């Protein structure tokens, strides 16, 4: 994700004045900065991440301290987002829950990448039976509805956050696998791969040195979209009570335990829901923006 930081290249935004052709990264940054919504979404994600990271500094109360006398308060000067059914400060809890929601999404996506990308590279580069077997397995996994598969895996392991993240990671793996395999297949026929092979490059060296960097662009798009969906998935599983377990909480589990109080204290349901909505939306918009800023062929035609 750090590679798409728009601030990375100085002077981006205008055409470079030197007659050196701009590098792919400069071109990407220039295009991405023109994608207004994506830039805004990027700022939103940075802010959400900062809020989660700096939760101990930004929190006004201890997120777990129960003051039963102050339970179910509407938002006010003392408790900006009100209090929950145990009198805990919702604003502070939201910050800490954001840490878990984001971390869970990062870990789930990382598991998906760790499983999918190496296997995709292997299948695309080696082809033959490796490709056939792996592709069929990916087909089978993808034919099982994602949330159902994730729930089944949670049920087999044990209902907690780690299981939920493993489950979401397994659900994602085939997507990363297919994407990596497809780009590997495309890159593999390029003449520079043939050149690398003819000068004696080993499969391993060619894959890590030449194939992987060229297969990276579509992956970046997929990672951004996967982050958004991972937050939704984790929220769904934790909402049901099968993900994060008390005393920890994520946005999903905050929602799950407050549904009973919706009529009395709508803020308990509205606030975590909006947090999920805004964060997921931001990741999706970034994904779209990155896709539109990358490469020649996958760019949107004319607006």
């Amino acid at each position, binding site marked *: 994700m750090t590679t798409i930081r728009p601030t990375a290249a100085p002077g981006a935004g205008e055409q470079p004045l030197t007659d050196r052709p701009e590098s792919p990264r400069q071109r990407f940054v220039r295009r991405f900065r023109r994608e207004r919504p994506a830039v805004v979404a990027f700022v939103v994600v940075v802010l959400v991440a900062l809020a989660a990271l700096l939760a101990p500094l930004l929190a006004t109360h201890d997120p777990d301290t129960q003051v039963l006398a102050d339970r179910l308060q509407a938002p006010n000067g003392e408790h900006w987002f009100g209090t929950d059914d145990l009198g805990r400060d919702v604003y502070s809890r939201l910050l800490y829950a954001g840490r878990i929601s984001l971390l869970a999404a990062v870990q789930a996506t990382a598991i998906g990448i760790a499983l999918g990308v190496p296997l995709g590279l292997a299948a695309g580069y080696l082809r033959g039976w490796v490709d056939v077997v792996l592709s069929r397995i990916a087909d089978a996994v993808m034919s099982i509805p994602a949330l159902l598969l994730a*729930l*089944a895996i949670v049920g087999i392991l044990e209902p907690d956050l780690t299981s939920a993240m493993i489950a979401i990671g397994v659900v994602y793996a085939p997507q990363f696998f297919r994407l990596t395999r497809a780009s590997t297949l495309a890159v593999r026929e390029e003449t520079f791969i043939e050149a690398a092979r003819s000068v004696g490059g080993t499969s391993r060296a060619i894959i890590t040195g030449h194939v992987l960097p060229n297969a990276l662009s579509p992956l970046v798009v997929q990672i951004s979209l996967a982050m958004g969906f991972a937050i939704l998935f984790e929220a769904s599983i934790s909402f049901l009570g099968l993900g994060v377990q008390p005393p920890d909480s994520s946005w999903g589990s905050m929602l799950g335990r407050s549904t009973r109080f919706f*009529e009395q204290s709508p803020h308990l349901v509205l606030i975590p829901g909006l947090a999920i909505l805004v964060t997921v939306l931001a990741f999706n918009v970034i994904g779209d923006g990155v896709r539109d800023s990358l490469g020649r062929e996958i760019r949107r035609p004319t607006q």
Partner: protein
Amino acid sequence: MIRMVARRLLALVPLVFLVTLLVWGLVLVIPGDQALAIAGDSATPEQVEAIREDLGLDDPVPVRYGRWLAAAVQGDLGTSLYTSYSVTDALADRLPVTLSLVFVSFALAVVVGTAIGMLAANQKGRLTDRLLTVTTSVGLAVPNFWLGLLLVTFFALKLEWFPSGGYVPFTEDPAGWLRSITLPAVTLATAVAAELARQMRASMSDVLERDFIRTHRAKGLRPATIVRRYALKNAAMPVITVAGLQIARLFGLATIVEIIFNLNGVGALAVDAVFDRDIPVIQGCVLLITVIVLLVNLVVDVSYGLVNPKVRAQ
């Protein structure tokens, strides 16, 4: 035509076989002693032994899989570990609820999604398009259980237009069925409608820029006629493919919608089974839904062939 369907059906066999392998193989991943895990911490050693005996856990893995598969093919998916009801019977009880929910949602998503997509493509770049694009982006990002809660609070508790939960069978009371299924279906359809709208917008605006459309316009055909008679057929192709893929998503998301609206469908059964760690029930739910998804995708594929002469010719 029939040969194509037959070929597709045959191609499904190895895929379904792999799915059964995966679904059954889940039990092998259970950490530690399976019988102990199933029996729970408070079980006596005799109970654990009984479960071990019951499940034939001492047999080699291929034998156990073969036994399970042979029974599953004959429609016997085993017995629930806790309530000792037959998994197949439980699924048969609950399947109509899930099917009603998913198919009403699918119809809703297709109609609303394509309509929004076509409208946006026609108004491309204008305010209507921008508003619709924002709406569909939000529709994709909104957690559906949250949306469901908002809809229940507003339309069921405040306005009392719809019941807040529960299912009325179609055969008992068609009007009541529709009322009971409306809010859940809207909740479930939102994300899929948004996805289809985005696809339709992209596909339709692409088609509208092609030369033959310009020719029709030059001939003086009305824009509405062009869209309906000529553009839609071409724009529909990629949308149908995406729509097929959304079936699986609907069945997945239906689990949580069933919980929120207190519908006793297969998804709610699966969630209960996950809480109880009732492995045979989990396996049965996943297997049944996956097979249904694959069959529905087959139907979508075939209908794709009906609409698209290029595919039909092969």
